């Protein structure tokens, strides 16, 4: 399961560190204590930044780095499609062999296909993605409130 891509991201995480954002969330994986603090910054519907700080295993750390690579600069709808595809892959219990179409969407993240065989580790891989989803929902809500106010 430890693909080189994963180890590379773990050792040299992309976009790590907390920067300015529209919303911040803190998520914990109770089974192993992995933690992440994550902020999203939107520019309209475009993701301007995803910044994060956390502690945890190589899988959760590398996954956050890959997320940053994949989502920053994307439009929200596109980002959601990526997130859903990643979720689908991680919940596949090793039964999905990523094809070219999936690789097109997930890029480096297809390296996590092997992790999906290990139920105890799937939550690690999903930690930052769940945090991103949550932070995005909060940012959108805050934005909506601002507009109606």
């Amino acid at each position: 399961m430890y693909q080189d891509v994963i180890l590379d991201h773990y050792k040299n995480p992309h976009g790590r560190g907390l920067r300015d954002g529209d919303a911040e969330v803190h998520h914990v994986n109770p089974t192993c204590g992995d933690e992440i603090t994550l902020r999203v910054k939107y520019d309209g519907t475009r993701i301007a930044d995803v910044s994060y700080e956390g502690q945890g295993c190589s899988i959760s750390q590398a996954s956050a780095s890959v997320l940053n690579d994949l989502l920053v600069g994307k439009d929200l709808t596109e980002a959601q499609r990526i997130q859903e595809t990643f979720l689908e892959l991680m919940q596949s219990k090793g039964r999905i062999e990523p094809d070219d179409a999936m690789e097109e969407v997930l890029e480096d993240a297809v390296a996590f296909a092997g992790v999906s065989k290990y139920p105890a580790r799937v939550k690690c891989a999903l930690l930052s993605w769940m945090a991103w989803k949550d932070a995005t929902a909060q940012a959108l809500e805050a934005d909506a409130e601002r507009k109606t106010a």
Partner: protein
Amino acid sequence: MTQLPGLLDTEAIRKDFPVLDRVVHDGKKLVYLDNAATSQKPRQVLDAVSEYYERYNANVHRGVHVLAEEATALYEGARDKVAEFVNAPSRDEVIFTKNASESLNLVANMLGWADEPYRVDRDTEIVITEMEHHSNIVPWQLLAQRTGAKLKWFGLTDDGRLDLSNIDRIITEKTKIVSFVLVSNILGTVNPVEAIVRRAQEVGALVCIDASQAAPHMPLDVQALQADFVAFTGHKMCAPTGIGVLWGRQELLEDLPPFLGGGEMIETVSMHSSTYAPAPHKFEAGTPPIAQAVGLGAAIDYLRTIGMDRILAHEHALTDYAVQRLSQVPDLRIIGPATAEDRGAAISFTLGDIHPHDVGQVLDEQGVAVRVGHHCARPVCLRYGIPATTRASFYLYSSPAEIDALVDGLEHVRNFFG
């Protein structure tokens, strides 16, 4: 040999149950008619349990090593099987306990510690029936004592059925919970779920069904029952001892507080406070009965291969036959419905004034194993003014020949004490 419509091929089935080959008292073939107390276990279940220990045994959840992942998959796989067996909308509604008694206590305690609108307290009422097993009486008596709530119950008719004539006075706006048995372990009565559930829903009371004598013997569908909780126990349905089930509606399990505290049921713990895992884990403190859950899964596979419909038909035919044959025994009085209609495969009776202990003992000397006493339902004995009963109860491996052996045995009992 007696031929009845709907019978299973018991000769083939009996080969799966090693204990049924036993001889007792110097050469008497065992005639096991104590299935309402506990069932025997097929080879398939024993093998699944042994295989679990011989190849996969590890503590479940949180492990990253192979055995821990495999053991977890087997344990959670058993939960899937139970969910399918009772047609649960979600696998997360299936809680593993140690037996039906714990399941029922769990419900009583959840409600005692719950917030509104579920909380049972001084101004509220609990409804049960007079035909409950002690395990569905005492938890509610304790809850009533400890909260000040009032305990009410449905009485019984002379022919062993629930007397629902005053249902609107018993289940009222004050009622928080109605808990009753689907099939009585002493009378054999199958209760009219719909009428009770309808009235409970009318007043917004929760419904808990004790399906301990139903799950082993007939198709069980928690959605069709429209109950909020359904409890049953593994050892009566071909599974190991040490495992029970509580099914509960998801929203309720989310809202209700935990009961036992400890490992596995938490989300995060500090010395100052803790938060709890989502159901079902919230209600499964400590290392669960892992091998026993695996055994229950194997038992369900076994029963479903034969088919719950066919098991029901088999037992109905046997019960019909037994009721007829027993009615011909002089001085024998059936306690409970006199026909096989709406009736499970447990038949209680008295025999003149020969005490059940003596009936049971003399039957045993002939190899016929029945249960005697109150069957953990003493209020029923009080209701019918009898000290105790003798109870014969059947299962998928029971045969008409065994009922014949029972009837012959009773003849012998009468002569012996006559």
